[in-house]
């Protein structure tokens, strides 16, 4: 397995306060790691830092062996980050965005249109491909961003709370799509509050507490909790502390 992401000693401050404080994280191809933690624990900040949206106050990040600090544009071509508030162009439709994504990232012309339609249909966006995103609901806009995030087919995909705002059917479909991508080698870093989704997808789960990794659940531990989401939630709560 190839290491897709290697982050060591990540520090990110807002003013004097370290929101992310010395996090180490490696991701290999086909691996799914879920970040858990209370609001303000540093999940989003960590993801934005790893995506190059925020600068580093300490540590280093390599994406496919390329230093994000030194060669940001090249390193960022190996990843896509879908935030909770995706930066969609209000006047453009999902198809417009997909066309731009395909052109900017050099996706194969023969394959991506059908793939985009398939992804959109799976997330129940098939009827709104050509509707400007400003005319879509918040949940649908979020799904548009997820479609684009999956369509990019980058070695590393980072989704910040991907299940938020999704209906049950779409949430289940998203899990299947993520699994499918994982099978083809994409590594995922997800932030989530949902124990059930974590158990369904994750190979590892990291609980952030005060900007540090407070607790890590490996494959074996997660397997032990499968089928008992409440017990897992309790374990996570214990890891978060008082």
């Amino acid at each position: 397995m190839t290491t897709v992401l290697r982050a060591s000693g990540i520090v990110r401050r807002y003013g004097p306060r370290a929101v992310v404080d010395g996090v180490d994280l490696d991701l290999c191809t086909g691996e799914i790691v879920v970040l858990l933690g209370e609001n303000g624990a540093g999940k989003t900040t960590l993801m934005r830092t790893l995506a190059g949206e925020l600068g580093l106050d300490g540590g280093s990040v390599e994406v496919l062996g390329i230093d994000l600090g030194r060669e940001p544009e090249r390193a960022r071509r190996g990843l896509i980050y879908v935030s909770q508030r995706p930066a969609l162009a209000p006047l453009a439709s999902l198809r417009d965005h997909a066309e731009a994504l395909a052109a900017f990232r050099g996706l194969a012309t023969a394959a991506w249109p059908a793939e985009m339609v398939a992804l959109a249909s799976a997330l129940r966006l098939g009827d709104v491909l050509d509707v400007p995103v400003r005319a879509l609901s918040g949940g649908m806009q979020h799904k548009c961003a997820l479609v684009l995030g999956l369509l990019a087919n980058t070695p590393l995909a980072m989704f910040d709370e991907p299940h938020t705002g999704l209906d049950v059917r779409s949430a289940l479909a998203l899990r299947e799509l993520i699994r499918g991508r994982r099978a083809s080698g994409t590594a995922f870093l997800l932030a989530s509050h949902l124990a059930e989704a974590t158990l369904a997808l994750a190979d590892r789960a990291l609980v952030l507490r005060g900007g540090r990794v407070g607790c890590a659940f490996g494959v074996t531990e997660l397997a032990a909790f499968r089928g008992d989401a409440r017990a897992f939630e309790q374990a996570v709560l214990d890891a978060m502390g008082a």
Partner: protein
Amino acid sequence: MAALFEAKVARTPWLGVALASLGLGWLIGAALANTRVEHITDLTLRTAAVFAVAWPVLLLDRVTTPPQWATRQWLGDSAVTAVAQGVRASFAWLVAGLLAPVGMSLRTDGMPWHGPVALTVALAMVGVWLATLHALLGALRAMGQGRKVPEALAGGGTFGPADAAQLIYAPAQGFVVGMVPVVVLTAWWGARGLEVPISTPVVIVIAVCAAWMLVRNWLPYQGPELFTGLRAVQVAHATRFATAQVMPGLPVWLGYACKAGGAGRWLGLALSRHDPLSPIVMAAVALAVAAFGPLWPLDLALVAAALGYLGATRRLALRDLDAWSAAQWLGAAQADLARAERRIGLTLAATGTLCALAAAFSGRSQLAAAALFGLGVGAWLGTALTLQLGPVPRWVGWTRATAWVVCALALGPGSAK
């Protein structure tokens, strides 16, 4: 692809722009046709300045904040293609804008000064466009190469003041540098006469081709530093410190001097507070007043003061930021600041000297000498003090502004025959 995406997210009514340019040119052509021949060079210079002042604003907007840049960046667009697309879009605006001299020629065809007028206006538009583009790309590259840009991108690190200074000055610098050949040309025209044996359409075609050839040769040499530079600008636009830096306070006196009513002053205040382009907008407003106002020496003095104000207030903004303990964000690398100030000082001094020489050509030798003296004292002393003392005292900026006023007065009425 960037063009297609941009066309969807930021549509430009090209036909309307072209027709507006043609119509505006036609109106100004009518004004020129009714002007006494001894005033034709003055009015041509002012007209050229009015048409040229649009390009620094447009280029700053298109190149440093491409439409939907956040989205494009997320989707994988590169800075180089985004900037290239911005340049192409602004070039399209330039081509549309060059219909203005065509519109003018519809009314002035057959007049003996018809050729020089078209040439002067076209030269001003293309020259300012090129000079501003060069200054902006240079500033972006410099920002991308800055030592602490990654930290600056985070919003909590430092950001070389030299780089920021270049970007802030780039539009005004582009305007001034681009206008130099125009000022010299009109002065020459006033003193010695000028024959342009080619028609307006040919002038326009040559101007367009020359601009495009130059830009095509520039762009491939713009390196990946543009990406970091462009991202730094994006962060800067979202940061109140940067906004304060780019955007100095309202020159209330300018609003009064331009005889703006309550609504105009309110607009000026809004622009100054919320639009980072406000200094340029103020200069554009002043230029428009200068072009059509009856008291043109005073008006042009105001224009010059507005341009000088760019320099003066920028320094004041830096002082304010220092007081806010935001110096860390700006870096406070005094050597860089001194280098930037020296470059700016040299540009101002060279430009002022050329303006003064142009005034001398036109026979107003006393005022030309005063302009030369003012510029010499203002720019060179200011630069020297910058190098010696580090942070620039407040009065240095105002000295430069005064130098500009003196220079403008030297180019007052009757400067061209």
